[in-house]
């Protein structure tokens, strides 16, 4: 056990993990957090809090993480390389750890061009792999990026993201290996709709023995409408939404689409559970958090283990 977070305990005990996601508001309203937290509490092993997702300014991931701790949920904070240089990242992480945050997802971050401040300067002092390495060095060697030592180190269960559907496809498992070599303890994948392609990716991952070196959580998420499915299919970089996913939603009456989306998500989870090497699922239902308990119930993942 490296840090003893609930997520780490669930995974090391061999349970199939289920984590959720919470998108902070574009305002200073703590009520939104309380409401969303109440929808997820007790249904997931940890809750990811996005860090200015899609480069849109929102309440900070760390501050929401602290609120979740107070509300009795386990947070996984996110940290991107887009907005902070190595000084800012390290100081924020010291603070997060001092507040009791134990899980951290390290990301490069969506380019500022896609967000609501497209003229901002992007930082990118480090890339996500260097960020992982820096956090690991802080935790395991008690050293800052510059090599200086510290008394009390921040202890994080280190997560990283991987998109099995991006190009070059052949390189993706090796990139995963690089993240693990840098220090990733767990991986969250991009949303999976193309299960056969993900299976192929996982086969390669297992051939390299990577599933034994870190926990791989498959990203899943319900689709609300046919329009959203089409949008994800055509306009989101790095997303792979096969036609049958859209067709299934199209095949039901309009007022049934949301219900079908939830069922479809649960079915994908059941398929993914059968794939060797997958240690859990990460359910991303941003602005639709109330769907999460139903999805997990349908997928047979409730109640969550007490560890």
């Amino acid at each position, binding site marked *: 056990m490296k840090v003893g977070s609930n997520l780490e305990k669930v995974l090391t005990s061999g349970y199939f993990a289920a984590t959720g996601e919470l998108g902070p508001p574009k305002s200073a309203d703590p009520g939104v957090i309380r409401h969303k937290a109440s929808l997820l509490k007790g249904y997931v092993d940890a809750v990811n809090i996005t860090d200015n997702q899609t480069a849109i300014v929102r309440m900070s991931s760390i501050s929401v993480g602290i609120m979740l701790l107070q509300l009795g949920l386990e947070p996984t904070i996110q940290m991107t390389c887009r907005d902070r240089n190595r000084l800012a990242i390290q100081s924020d992480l010291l603070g997060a750890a001092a507040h009791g945050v134990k899980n951290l997802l390290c990301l*490069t*971050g969506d380019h500022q061009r896609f967000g609501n401040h497209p003229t901002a300067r992007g930082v990118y002092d480090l*890339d996500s*792999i260097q960020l992982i390495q820096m956090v690991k060095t802080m935790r395991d060697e008690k050293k800052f990026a510059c090599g200086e030592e510290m008394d009390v180190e921040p202890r994080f269960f280190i997560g990283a993201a991987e998109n099995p559907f991006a190009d070059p496809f052949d390189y993706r498992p090796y990139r995963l290996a690089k993240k693990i070599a840098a220090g990733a303890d767990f991986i969250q994948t991009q949303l999976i709709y193309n299960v056969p392609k993900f299976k192929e990716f996982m086969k390669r991952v297992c051939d390299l023995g990577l599933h034994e070196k870190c926990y791989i959580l498959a990203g899943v998420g319900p689709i609300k409408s046919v329009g959203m499915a089409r949008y994800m299919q055509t306009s989101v970089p790095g997303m792979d939404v096969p036609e049958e996913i859209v067709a299934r939603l199209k095949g039901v009456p309009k007022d049934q689409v949301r219900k079908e989306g939830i069922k479809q998500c649960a079915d994908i989870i059941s398929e993914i559970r059968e794939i060797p090497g997958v240690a859990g699922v990460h359910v991303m239902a941003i602005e639709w958090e109330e769907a999460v308990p139903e999805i997990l119930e349908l997928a047979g993942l409730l109640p969550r283990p007490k560890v």
Partner: protein
Amino acid sequence: MIKAQQKPIAEIKALIAPYHRILILGCGTCVTISFAGGEKEVGLLASSLRIASAMEGQDKIFAEATVQRQCEWEFIDAVAEQIQQADAVLSLACGIGVQALAERYPDKVVLPGVNTTFLGMAVEHGVLVERCRACGDCILGLTGGVCPIARCAKNLLNGPCGGSQNGKCEVNPELDCAWQLIYDRLARLGQLDRLAALMPYKDWSKDYDGGPRKIVREDLRL
């Protein structure tokens, strides 16, 4: 070479508005090759400004000149007299040329007529692309001769981001993903194993983060 683009005419007009005698000064090197500020562009810009000035009932006087390189003292001194006669110099050189003029002629108003855009090359006639950001610590030897600092939108050092698809960059689908290019080159060279090595944190102090840079070659000083 340094690539530049002429500023919009409205912006140029606003810049020169307070002045009467204006010298439009081109440069015969980089901006000539990028079709932004050579002799030809000086002529074209002077004609449009003359017409605009006449139509708006002003009587501005535009002189034209082009030197071989605006970033070297001896070349700008060749037009010292014309510079002295002007109220303002509208330079069509890169930002280096503009500053060379400002430094050499401390009492003269010097205005930029182009936006200095990047260090790059023409890949086909009329298509200019960025290739280098002068980071001060070249890593092309590790990346198959393709620069991830200048050509990856997030200057990633350890492989492609999750948005690389069909060889294109997620940030600008008109551009190739630098990491796809690096991957393909290393594959051809039989050096894919290089991608396994973790690239150390970059030393940005050699880039502009270390403050303005200076090279002193003692062996060459007089």
